[in-house]
């Protein structure tokens, strides 16, 4: 325990170790936060969800904070509805069971770029007679534009940009810019806009609710992708997946490699021979290609890929490196002493040989984590990621297949890429520092 404490104390001497620990701990915190706030089932539902889950979000929207770096301000997205009181609704009863509804929503628009779209979702309660709705648009310069009058079905979606009548009325193909600009100059008009909705219901007990969805040009802190999904979900959930994959693969590979090398060295003879030959064959086999084959023909589940990765990574060069050290340790006096007192071979392997290797194991284990994190991302980019799990690699794959870089959606690639790089850097720095502590020969002076 004391030795452990001393090692930790020495760790803080190295700034790179401190950085590495900070990065690793941050990742762990993010991972735990992700798993607590978005439970697994919810994350899968959100990630696999389509329009019905994500209708409130714009497509391809960069994160909102890019406004800090641009001279043109992009409009943010929002959605408001009558059901939760964010749009106030007034219902006035009329004669013979009829009633009128009126609702209005006022908002400030001080941005430099037109929003993507405005959509109204109506839900109406009635038995025979359809309620009737009329909508009006009030601009900052006091103009009042009639948008549409329509009879509504129990569920009705009205997209402003798709209304042909509105296009003719505004004398423009692009409805949204026309609504937000000065008709004389054609320039964008900043100020307070208002949406007025009045409804007429012709039955007692009839009711109308409305949701106003405003698709701006930017969204949230991570932006959205081609299916309007909030990228914060895969970015957050990518952390536990990457950490789990990296740590399990690294730990599994290192420990199994070491145990197998120790067993081979201790028993020698055909056991050692077999292990060495398997290693040599495995060394010339193309690792990534085999994984791609497994992913293509067998299963893309992350657990299958993880298992295959560990199996293929056991018999690699490190088994030879461990063997070389074990050969040396095997001849030490205390091993012979242990044999003399009647320690069984298993005991010698696990109590005498393997503990000697821990100082070599720990730095190697930590340094190997990024390799496996990147491997998982590479497989995802190649289209072999787990079809269910949201991961950083999947974001890059989506971005790639949607031409993110050609279309200027840099955020889409950069967000997961930066997270991957920070993860790799953190573990690598920690690994190097650990290496210096556990292998004093590397220390200068």
């Amino acid at each position, binding site marked *: 325990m004391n030795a452990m404490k001393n090692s930790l104390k020495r760790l803080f001497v190295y700034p790179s170790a401190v950085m590495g620990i900070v990065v690793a701990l941050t990742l762990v915190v993010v991972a735990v936060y992700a798993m607590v706030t978005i439970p697994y089932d919810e994350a899968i539902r959100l990630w696999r969800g389509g329009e019905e889950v994500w209708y409130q979000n714009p497509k391809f929207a960069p994160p909102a904070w890019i406004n800090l770096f641009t001279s043109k301000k992009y409009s943010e997205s929002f959605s408001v509805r009558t059901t939760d009181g964010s749009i106030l609704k007034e219902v006035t009863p009329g004669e013979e069971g009829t009633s009128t509804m009126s609702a209005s929503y006022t908002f400030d628009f001080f941005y430099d770029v037109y929003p993507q779209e405005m959509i109204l979702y109506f839900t109406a309660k009635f038995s025979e007679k359809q309620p009737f709705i009329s909508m009006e648009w009030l601009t900052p310069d006091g103009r009042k534009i009639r948008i549409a009058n329509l009879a509504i079905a129990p569920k009705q979606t009205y997209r402003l940009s798709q209304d042909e009548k509105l296009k003719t009325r505004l004398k423009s193909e692009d409805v949204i810019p026309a609504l937000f600009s000065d008709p004389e100059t054609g320039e964008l008009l900043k100020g307070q806009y208002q949406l007025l909705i009045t409804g007429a219901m012709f039955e007692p007990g009839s009711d109308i609710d409305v949701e106003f969805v405003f698709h701006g040009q930017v969204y949230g802190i991570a932006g959205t992708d081609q299916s309007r999904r909030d990228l914060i979900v895969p970015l957050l959930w990518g952390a536990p997946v990457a950490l789990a994959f990296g740590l399990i693969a690294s730990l599994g590979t290192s420990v199994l490699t070491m145990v197998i090398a120790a067993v081979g060295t201790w028993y020698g003879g055909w056991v050692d021979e077999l292990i060495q030959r398997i290693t040599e064959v495995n060394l010339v086999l193309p690792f990534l290609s085999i994984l791609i084959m497994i992913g293509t023909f067998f299963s893309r589940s992350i657990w299958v890929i993880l298992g295959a990765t560990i199996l293929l990574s056991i018999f690699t060069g490190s088994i030879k490196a461990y063997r070389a050290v074990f050969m040396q340790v095997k001849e030490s006096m*205390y091993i012979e*002493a242990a044999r003399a007192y*009647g320690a069984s071979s298993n005991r010698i392997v696990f109590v005498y040989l393997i503990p000697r290797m821990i100082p070599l194991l720990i730095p190697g284990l930590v340094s190997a984590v990024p390799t496996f994190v990147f491997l998982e991302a590479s497989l995802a980019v190649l289209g072999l990621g787990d079809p269910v799990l949201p991961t950083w690699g999947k974001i890059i794959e989506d971005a790639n297949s949607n031409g993110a870089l050609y279309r200027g959606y840099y955020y889409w690639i950069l967000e997961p890429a930066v997270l991957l790089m920070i993860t790799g850097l953190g573990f690598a720095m920690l690994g190097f520092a650990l290496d210096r502590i556990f292998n004093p020969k590397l220390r200068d002076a």
Partner: protein
Amino acid sequence: MNMPPRKLLQIEKLVLHFKTSHGVVQAVDSVNFELDTNRAVVILGESGCGKSSLAKAMLRLLPRNVDKYGGSVYLNGEDVMMYDEDEFRRNVRWVGMSLVPQAAMNSLNPVIRVGDQVAEPAMVHLGIRKTEAMTLVRRMFQHVGVPEDFISRYPFELSGGMRQRVALAMALVTSPSLILLDEPTSALDLLTQANIMNVLKRIKHELGTSFILITHDIATSSELADEVAVMYAGQIVEVGHAKDFFPAPLHPYAQMLMASVPRLRSESDPMFITGQPPSLIDLPEGCRFAARCPFRFEKCNEEPPMLGKNGRKVKCWLYE
């Protein structure tokens, strides 16, 4: 079949040959000797005469390049050479006899606390739990004179003498009836040597243990020895009681070996034996000492048998 006699240890025709690229090394060549309970035998001989190989052969700690390994080792009347590897490990090592290996100070695992290290054989062989084993370890530390608080130290925190005592405690912990000590004092200063020898004497007295002490240090070993066996070129050339042997060794080699010990207040210079011991790969016909022996005569071209004389045994034609 003759019943094996009920001695603590009886070795008959023990052979251990190694294969090397230069030829077969006859490290232990048909060695016979026996030992009673609570006796100490010293095996004397110069470096490379097969003393350590004899210890290895007795405990079956064989390297990979064994050419020939055979003979009988009766421990309490049972031929342990008949045991298979697992039986041998369970019933002989540390149960029947334990070993304090050569350079015992380096025979402690550097990453295990010495207390745990000493407890290991007890846990392996007596099947007891750690806590019980640690009580035993404390008792053993008392026997060999290691302070109790050393239990949680690592080997590098101990001096050479202390490490040697710990190795001795480890050999004692399963209370075997026989302990093999392979040059237990060779790397220690004189005071520590004397200390260790006193510890061994006390243990012999208190626990009734038998010792086989392998050494080339005649002076120190004479302290403990009840019996002496002299080894030369893989064979035992003389066996006898210490009280007979030390004043008047019989075999010419033993005589010259004794004469090489420097003496206090003596006019004569210490002697040395001219020539080299024969290579264990290419052994001469007849007596193996003949080439260096000042008393050699024609008969020495034939191998001498073990000749008995007044309860002593010597492998030399002079005593025919």
